[in-house]
């Protein structure tokens, strides 16, 4: 039976709560309502209010309380209703959670789940991709799964990890993609990228919903003879540069794609890393396809112009292929 991306996260969380009595969830409307996107639907009925804690509208208190409980040996999974609201818990994440281990060897085993991403007509405050705010913060782990398989495996790894993990789940993927998942327990390692399509002429490096866009672009260009490799980063921090380097060494051309805005996106970091480490393997300039440096607009015509899509990726990839 096929499992959606959303259901995969739900299953992963459920199984972790069954496995470890120290795992609990807290957040706004996660209880009787089941969460704004229904990721925790049915949880409170099964696990009770002790392990499914409905909180006031207080992101700072949600993250802070998760930290306190984590320091005491529990494994809290905090839900941000939308990733856009994670700003209200920013200090707790970047100043408290991220620095405890380095400063005083204290383990903060928390997960902050954050539904992110555009394409759902959410406007400026329900569509953002705030992952890079956290990628800039040593001590955090930042995970952005693209597939149902990875979403389930990575949420399990995040729950079991002894460091704070910010788990970005793309809202546009929740019910759009599905696949058959293996029965039984499995995990996907944090910090490991994956080659999701093999190719010879060009590498596209991306993550999250843009993995699907890149795969569509690769299919389209295959008709023109281009053999495109697609690397799904899966984790942005720690960043698996080695998998990217191995692919670029093979293809000698690279297109970096993200739905996040342009300046300060992961593409810039990857471009410098590639030129620092394997410049001699490149046969073409490094290009990128990203959202422009604007807030996420609401009206469909504007949002469509804002978001990267298959046509935009095909255009740049074709240019690189022919270069």
């Amino acid at each position, binding site marked *: 039976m096929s499992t959606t991306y959303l259901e995969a996260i739900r299953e992963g969380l459920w199984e972790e709560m069954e496995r470890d009595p120290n795992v609990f969830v807290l957040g706004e409307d996660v209880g009787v309502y089941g969460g704004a996107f229904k990721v925790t639907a049915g949880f409170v009925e099964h696990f009770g209010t002790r392990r499914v804690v409905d909180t006031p509208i207080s992101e700072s*208190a949600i993250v802070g309380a998760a930290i306190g409980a984590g*320091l*005491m040996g*529990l494994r809290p999974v905090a839900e941000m209703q939308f990733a856009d609201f994670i700003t209200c818990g920013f200090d*707790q994440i970047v*100043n408290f959670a991220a620095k405890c281990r380095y400063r005083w060897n204290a383990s903060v085993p928390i997960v902050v789940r954050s539904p992110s991403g555009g394409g759902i007509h959410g406007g400026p405050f329900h569509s953002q991709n705030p992952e890079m705010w956290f990628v800039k913060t040593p001590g955090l782990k930042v995970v952005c799964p693209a597939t149902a398989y990875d979403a389930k495996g990575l949420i399990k790894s995040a729950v079991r990890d002894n460091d704070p993990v910010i788990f970005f789940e793309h809202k546009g993927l929740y019910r759009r993609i599905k696949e058959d998942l293996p029965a039984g327990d499995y995990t996907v390692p944090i910090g490991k990228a994956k080659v999701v399509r093999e190719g010879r002429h060009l590498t596209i490096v991306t993550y999250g919903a843009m993995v699907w866009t890149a795969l569509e672009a690769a299919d389209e260009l295959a008709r023109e003879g281009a053999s495109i490799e697609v690397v799904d980063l899966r984790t942005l921090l720690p960043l698996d540069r080695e998998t990217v380097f191995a692919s670029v060494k093979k293809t000698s051309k690279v297109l970096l794609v993200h739905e996040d805005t342009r300046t300060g996106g992961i593409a810039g970091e990857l471009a410098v890393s590639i030129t620092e480490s394997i410049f001699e393997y490149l046969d073409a300039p490094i290009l990128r396809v990203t959202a422009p440096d604007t807030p996420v607009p609401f009206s469909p015509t504007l949002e469509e112009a804002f978001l990267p899509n298959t046509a935009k990726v095909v255009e740049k990839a074709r240019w690189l292929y022919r270069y």
Partner: protein
Amino acid sequence: MSTVLTASAERQAREDDGELAALAARCHYYMALMRETEDRIERKLYRQGKIVGGVYVGRGQEAIPVGSALHALPDDVLLPSHRDMAVLFIRGVPLRRVFAQYMGRVDGLTRGRDGNMHMGDMQRRVVAIISALAATVPVAAGAALALKYQGKDGVAFCYFGDGATSRGDWHEGVNLATVQKLPVVFLCNNNQYAYSTPLELQMACANVADRAPAYNMPAEIVDGNDVLAVYDATGRAVAHARAGLGPYMVECKTFRMTGHSAHDAAHYVPPELFAQWEKRDPIRRLETRMMENGWADRAALEAANARIRQEVDEAVAWAEQSPYPDPSTLLDDVYENS
């Protein structure tokens, strides 16, 4: 400032009690140890250049961490703020490691990764503060939630100053704790200045305790320079929280007898305020009381203070021998396996 409660009638009745004499002696030890340690840090080591970075002391406020933390049981968790050093001593943090911390040495609790009071040790159930004040308030709520979750009757001791109550984190944390009826004791040291900003520019209410009714939380105001009064009030607060009745706040009225930090001469504080509060010095007040009640004589107190000076001498000497961290360790411990 508003009315300050004096010693409770309940305690007056037990003035002769030998138990009270013993409690007073413990209070005296920890308060005098904190005073001597911070004096050594601020007035000697800092001026000698042996401590780089900021130094923030709790001179004049020692009764608050001491009178409160003496109630803590092993399961309890404490979240001291930056003027609550005695909490560390009461939880058994070795004095020599505190000096090593201030001097940036490898034997400090943070191995040179952080300075001053920014230290903690979960083995002793002490959480390290961060510089953004009130950030520990939601964390205290979470620690208390964990105690409840684990079926323990432990309490979280959450310390903060008056200025911290202006932050959103304070309100979010107190709200969550009261809504969930979590076992938190909120301990405010109201020292009347947030850096240079006086209380009336910090809040429109007269007392920090006035904020409590909005959260349906019991609160009391106590003379923060009377260690036995702080002890009594905290005892009521802890009993309330431990009984599962939810959070309880104790506002300890006091005065910051220094600038915000060692580099701040506090020219903005009227000198007469310092003079007025000098007369209420919590250590001298306790010593007077101990002598008046026959719990100790001058010679015994002087002997106790001499022992403390020696303890501090030894700790400083030990810390000065501790090496600075090896630069090759710079990248360690960002993550569990790094």
